[in-house]
């Protein structure tokens, strides 16, 4: 996948490949329970209903921000400028690339250190810098691993979740040829120590550090990053220039509002009460400061977001990128993030991708859902993800982008659904046939025309009667 050529339209083929990839499946199995159990435990440690009350507050807060986004962005910009920083407005990914490159060239940068930022992924910053002779170095451990492997993140908070330990070992052996080829890399701790040692030197070499922003505070002009490793802070404190890349909807009005979001962010993401490092940054180093950057730039990215305001997709702009919907999604858990084919995977990606790159390219993703509803159940900002995926399916159908066989099948179904007597006769006959086929075992290993469904699990054979028959009996 490359950012300019999403493989999103080939989601089905991607998913088939992912299912057949035993390495990927083993990595996904390893990650599944940790996130889900962690969130549940963190939620349980608060008082009854407190977590859900905070989710309501988070939803209401972002609705207020989106209703007044223009005013808050202007207030934020004024504060950043007053603290000696610079705000750059980018309408598109291309604009953002040009702005970042210009700042880096002005700084005479040869190396740019990166804290983890999905906006940078969305804009394809790394390839653009590299094409202009500037070396981007990812410093988040997961991002470092996938950069060595020439990959993109497969998860918004755990970018290397698809990589197994032996694969990390292989990547380090290849990327660090200056180290002893016979060294012991058997333990996880030895791998961590090696990455730490390699990156420590790089922090002191870079002229520019790029981070993302979990939030921007209008009241103070501060940008916030939330990390566990400390790489984002080293990337923004040691180089002489700090660039923050943030999308316009990251604004919150006050520090207290940021506190409300922080209370649900880490609990939803990793199951921590609070991530290790939460840093509020405003402007460049002060006159008397012995460390910190001499320049502070914020790149505010729109890239399609302002077009979502006031539409049925506005609620998606409440997203705080915790990854809970991804962690709880049975489709993501089965195929991993790369199958989604662009920057944002899972349920949030299925809604956001068509908004940002168009339904023609991204329209396959909203179909990658069983509508089980777990994503909405766990979303800290109460984003109605399944509802928005349905809206995208409708748009895809209206634009006649849905494959012919699907349109034909839906047409046949609609014809029957409008003729209840025929529909009920049909379901009765179908049920009887399935019951005969599954006799004695209570389940079916294969069903005609449903090989895709039964390929990885059995279909339960119908027990008892049709719904309508049972309903009528109960009414009597």
């Amino acid at each position, binding site marked *: 996948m490359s950012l300019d050529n999403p493989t999103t339209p080939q989601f089905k083929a991607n998913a088939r490949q992912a299912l057949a990839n035993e390495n990927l499946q083993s990595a996904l199995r*390893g*990650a599944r329970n940790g996130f889900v159990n962690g969130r549940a435990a963190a939620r349980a440690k*608060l*008082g009854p209903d*407190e977590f859900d009350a*905070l989710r309501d*507050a*988070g939803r*209401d*807060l972002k609705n*207020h921000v989106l*209703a007044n*986004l*223009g005013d808050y*962005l202007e207030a934020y910009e004024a504060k950043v400028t007053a*603290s000696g920083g610079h705000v750059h*407005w980018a*309408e598109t990914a291309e604009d953002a690339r040009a702005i970042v490159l210009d700042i880096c060239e002005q700084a005479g940068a040869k190396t740019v250190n990166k804290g983890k930022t999905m906006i940078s992924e969305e804009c394809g910053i790394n390839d653009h810098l590299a094409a202009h002779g500037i070396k981007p170095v990812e410093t*988040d*451990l*997961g991002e470092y691993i996938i950069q060595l492997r020439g990959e993109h993140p497969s998860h918004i908070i*755990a970018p290397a979740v698809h990589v*197994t330990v032996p694969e990390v070992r292989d990547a380090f052996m290849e990327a660090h040829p200056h180290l002893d080829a016979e060294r012991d890399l058997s333990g*996880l701790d030895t791998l*961590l120590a090696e990455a*730490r040692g390699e*990156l420590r*030197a790089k*922090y002191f070499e870079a002229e520019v550090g790029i981070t993302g922003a979990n939030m921007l505070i209008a009241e103070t002009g501060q940008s916030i990053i939330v990390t*566990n*490793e*400390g*790489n984002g802070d*080293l990337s923004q*404190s040691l180089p002489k220039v700090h660039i923050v890349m943030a999308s316009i909807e990251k604004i919150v*009005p*006050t*520090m*207290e509002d*940021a*506190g*409300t979001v922080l*209370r649900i962010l880490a609990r939803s993401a990793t199951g921590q*009460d*609070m*991530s*290790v*490092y*939460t*840093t509020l*940054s*405003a402007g460049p180093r*002060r006159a008397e*400061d*012995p*460390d*910190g950057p001499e320049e502070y730039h914020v790149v505010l990215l*729109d890239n399609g977001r*302002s077009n979502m*305001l006031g539409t049925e997709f506005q609620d998606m702009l409440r997203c705080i990128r915790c990854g809970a919907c991804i962690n709880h999604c049975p489709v993501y858990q089965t195929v991993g993030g790369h199958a989604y084919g662009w920057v944002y995977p899972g349920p949030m990606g299925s809604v956001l991708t068509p908004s940002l790159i168009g339904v023609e390219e991204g329209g396959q993703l909203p179909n990658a859902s069983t509508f089980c509803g777990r994503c909405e159940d766990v979303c800290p900002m109460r984003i109605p993800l399944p509802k928005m995926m349905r809206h995208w399916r409708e748009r895809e159908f209206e634009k006649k982008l849905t494959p012919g066989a699907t349109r034909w099948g839906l047409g046949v179904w609609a014809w029957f659904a409008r003729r209840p007597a025929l529909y009920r006769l049909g379901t009765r006959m179908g049920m009887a046939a399935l019951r005969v086929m599954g006799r004695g075992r209570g389940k079916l290993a294969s069903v005609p025309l449903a090989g895709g469904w039964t390929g990885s699990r059995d279909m339960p054979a119908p027990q008892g009667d049709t719904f309508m028959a049972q309903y009528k009996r109960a009414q009597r």
Partner: protein
Amino acid sequence: MSARDRILSRIRKAEAPAAEHLAAPVPGIASLEGAARIERFCAQVEAASATLSRLDSFEALPAALADELRQRNLPAAIRMGADPDFAHLDFGGLQVSHGPGRIEEPATLSRATFGMAETGSLVLLSGPDNPVTLTFLGETHFAVLQESDVKAGFEDVFAGLRAAGHDPRTVNFVTGPSRSADIGQTLQLGAHGPVALHVFLVAGGVE
């Protein structure tokens, strides 16, 4: 029209539905007072894989620090900023150096402005007194905090920052030592920042 004007004009034309700015609820863990607050702070510091010891006064710091360094098999040396609370202390045999963090820093010392009982976080402000790089480059990071500066939750911390008129380049909330689960989905301490964090909680202070 500039990119800024075009973005703002699209936003203003969009007519997002009106919504009030409501006060958010404060969870019980962020509203503790007195001994319960200190008790929660200490418990949360340890839950975040940091360690904590209590001192009667700042004067007890040099001996306690020397002792911790010895027990951790670290050199008898410490890097710190120009914080006035450290300036008058006699660190005796410890080799003290002042300034921002360097590429290898076995042990660094910072003065935390606040603690936050809600999550066991330290709140550090960057500047000459406590250079921000000391918080991230020390392999073992020591932080000193006065009991009276332990706040209940975010609300009191932010109120405290406003009241004191602090305007640092960074406000750092630190909750335990650095960590990562990016290799094999297994949590390990000491990713890029400190491998260990130790808090000296000094009794008393002015409320």
